[in-house]
């Protein structure tokens, strides 16, 4: 069974919405999440494939991109007993 992230060709997500002059991050916390993730991977707390897996198994289409990232980071840290 495909995971929820495997959306290629799936109907029902509505139109593609393009935001003009979009900034790289919409809030400071998004930048923090991105940077925190890179730093944790560089330190070997988890690796990039583990992070991808965590995003795929914890994500929700109701959440924003970086909300899903933050949920995955939290899951990985909890599973490793870090937090």
């Amino acid at each position, binding site marked *: 069974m495909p995971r929820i992230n495997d959306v290629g060709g799936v109907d029902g997500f509505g139109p593609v919405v393009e935001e003009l002059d979009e900034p790289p991050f919409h809030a400071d916390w998004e930048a923090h999440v991105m940077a925190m993730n890179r730093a944790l*991977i560089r330190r070997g707390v988890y690796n990039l494939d583990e992070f991808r897996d965590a995003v795929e198994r914890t994500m929700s289409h109701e959440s924003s991109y970086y909300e899903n990232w933050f949920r995955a980071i939290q899951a990985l840290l909890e599973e490793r007993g*870090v937090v």
Partner: protein
Amino acid sequence: MSDDHDDSPIAARVRELEAVLEEKGLLDPRELDQVLEAFTHRASPANGFRVVARAWTDEGFRTRLLENANEALPELGLSMGGGLQVQRLHVVENTEDVHNVLVCTLCSCYPLSLLGPSPTWYKSPAYRAKVVSHPREVLEQFGLTLPETTRIEVWDANAESRYMVLPRRPEGTGDLTEAELAALVTRNGLIGTAAV
């Protein structure tokens, strides 16, 4: 980025987690600044624009780029090794008959170092789902209407392989310098949701 006055619940939760990780010695605020600096300054679509302009003006470079982009990029001081892992880059060329467009159906794989941070629409389920089944319709939403005779090829990126579109050089640009040509290229042109 150390000053953070965002009082939304998620911003607070991110700050809390950061504080815990700092306390445990797993995170250093200066490290976060460095990571962000590298991300926002080195990853820029201007890099992709330079690659395209060079390919338009230097036939030898164009050939090398299409054959092995990873080996050609260092000619412009660029590489695909700036992120967490080196990725194979495949540059796909638009022609009169074929138009290329990129997607990552599974997540958000994207050649950051050449295109800069990816737009939200590229990461949206709507784009990822639809561009593979109805590419012509999606391109029309971006204002790009292609002749019926043009074949559309959709390239699905993954963890190891990334793609970049080499748009067609616009007509009437024979007199322009490489820098002037680079200024014609857009980020969406490198993804394939614009002609150039």
